[in-house]
């Protein structure tokens, strides 16, 4: 088991190399001028090219990538062209906002999506089932920024119940969190429903019924626990997606988070900041998936056995 975890953590290295290489390539496909960004529009051309030379910007592509990786190995990811501060300082300044947003959104989505999904499955073909299926279908497909703008229009502009922009109080988080959680809740509902239905039709559920177990016991003790595996996967994936996917929401609601940082850095061609932000998100996502995988083994003895055999 420990061995397995260590192996998985070592896998982060090729992932990091892959991600940085791809982002580095993409960023280099677009013409940019870091010296100009750092010194401003008024600076003279000589100073700008002097700075670019110092930054190694005129070196060949692979030399620059190698230098980047060499720096990264020493945990030197460079400074933001825009602010001049170390890139990870910028990231950690904003990350708590994004984390809050994603975490609360996942909780909301789970709290709504999973119980409704179970209910929908247990009462298949009932009115509750039909209604929640239709609503979830609509919301799973609704774009987040549209939901966000509708939310701002109704609850901030019209009703004036909630603030629309910023992140200074907890009330600022209500609209973004709800908006962000709606599509997740909808997809979670659909997934919970289908896995529950599939599980309920398994033979061992019939065995449980034949033992004289009550319907409640059959659903919660036997079916739900078995259906939990795919639900947890989707929950973990959602968390990962929401971390990055908060990009749109952070921009709609002007929340200073990682998403907003990433978008602004791309717009300004702030290469070190873009590199570090995407790398951070990618590694975080991979770690979340690892945690989800490990949670499996606590639920399912078959998977635990498989991990132990890798030893």
């Amino acid at each position, binding site marked *: 088991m420990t061995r397995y975890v260590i192996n998985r953590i070592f896998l982060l290295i090729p992932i990091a190399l892959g991600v940085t290489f791809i982002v580095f390539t993409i960023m280099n496909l677009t013409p940019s001028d870091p010296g100009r960004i750092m010194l401003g529009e008024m600076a003279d051309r000589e100073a700008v090219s002097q700075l670019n030379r110092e930054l190694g910007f005129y070196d060949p592509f692979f030399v620059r990538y190698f230098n980047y990786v060499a720096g990264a190995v020493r945990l030197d990811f460079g400074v933001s062209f825009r602010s001049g501060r170390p890139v990870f300082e910028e990231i950690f300044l904003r990350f708590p906002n994004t984390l809050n947003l994603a975490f609360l959104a996942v909780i909301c989505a789970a709290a709504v999506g999973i119980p409704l999904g179970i209910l929908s499955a247990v009462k298949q073909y009932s009115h509750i089932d039909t209604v929640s299926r239709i609503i979830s279908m609509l919301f799973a497909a609704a774009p987040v920024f549209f939901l966000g703008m509708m939310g701002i229009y109704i609850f901030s502009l019209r009703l004036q119940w909630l603030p629309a922009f910023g992140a200074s109080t907890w009330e600022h988080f209500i609209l973004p969190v709800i908006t962000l959680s709606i599509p997740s809740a909808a997809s979670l509902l659909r997934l919970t429903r289908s896995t529950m239905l599939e599980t309920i039709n398994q033979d061992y559920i019939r065995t*449980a019924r034949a033992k004289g177990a009550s319907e409640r016991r059959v659903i919660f003790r036997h079916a739900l626990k078995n259906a939990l595996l795919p639900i947890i996967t989707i929950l973990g994936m959602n968390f990962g997606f929401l971390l990055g996917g908060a990009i749109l929401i952070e921009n709609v609601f002007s929340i200073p988070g990682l998403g907003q940082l990433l978008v602004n850095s791309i717009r300004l061609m702030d290469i070190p900041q873009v590199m570090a932000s995407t790398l951070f998100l990618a590694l975080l996502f991979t770690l979340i998936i690892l945690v989800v995988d490990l949670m499996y083994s606590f639920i399912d003895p078959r998977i635990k056995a498989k991990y132990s055999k890798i030893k």
Partner: protein
Amino acid sequence: MPRELMSIENLSVIYKTDLETVRAVNGVSITLEKGKTLGIVGETGAGKTTLALSLMRLLPKATGRITEGRVILQDQDLYKLSEIEMKSIRGNLVSMIFQDPMTSLNPIMKVGDQIAESLILHNDEKLTKEQISARVEETLTLVGIPPFRKNDYPHQFSGGMKQRVVIAIALACKPQLLIADEPTTALDVTIQAQVLSMMADLKEALDTAMIMITHDIGIVAQICDYVAVMYAGEIIEYGTIQDIFDHSREHHPYTVGLFGSIPDLKHKTRRLSPIDGLMPDPTMLPRGCAFSPRCPKCEPLCKDQKPPDRDNNGHRIRCYFVGGAQ
């Protein structure tokens, strides 16, 4: 005096979907005595599983319907009981073993806990935790599994061992009736024999009546007291094992075809031999005798009207031309 345990009276079951109505069981009547074994034989699709599930009231809720008939178990009409009363019968008075042991156990529960669950659900004797745990070990020993394996999960067992666990679950509460739906079909031949002889021994030891659903004539010959031959949802022949395996007696044309030449009880038996043609589509059953389209002895009368049961001292045959008192 016959010690009657269960009587099934004119039972009919359908599966109703938006598209069609499947007539899976059509007017089945059988009685079962305490401690005896009834074999139900028939081809796939004859309605054997459906019959078994309706005895437990475990038909799929969305589609399965009991359209007529009664099932009386020890003077209780099962179809008049509430779901709560029925729950206390399932796994306690009547247990069921399903066909596929590979999928019949909950993959994420220890086998010991799965056996204990039956005991906890029907804890009429107010057993303590320790007593239940002792009973679990006892039951495991009974089915030939070392008790220390109670903390293992199903994936750690072979197919035959899994079926033993399934049997242990079914027998944990010492039921009056055990319904076994093709319990050995999914197992290797060598394992089949072991599991079967174990079941026969346990049945003897616990004085449990059994309904053994199978399409293996060998199994019938080995452990059954009575045999019912099922075809298109009907019992077309019923009798004691001696009646059914007696060469000198008349048999339903389907039984004759099913058994090929009926093997001698003393000799090695074999699997059912297929008969030309297919079973009628259960959504469109023929008006007359269900077997008439395949029957070598078919007459115009057979296609027109359902034949009656002809009874010869309890050996019943549903045909115009064979059976009845000679």
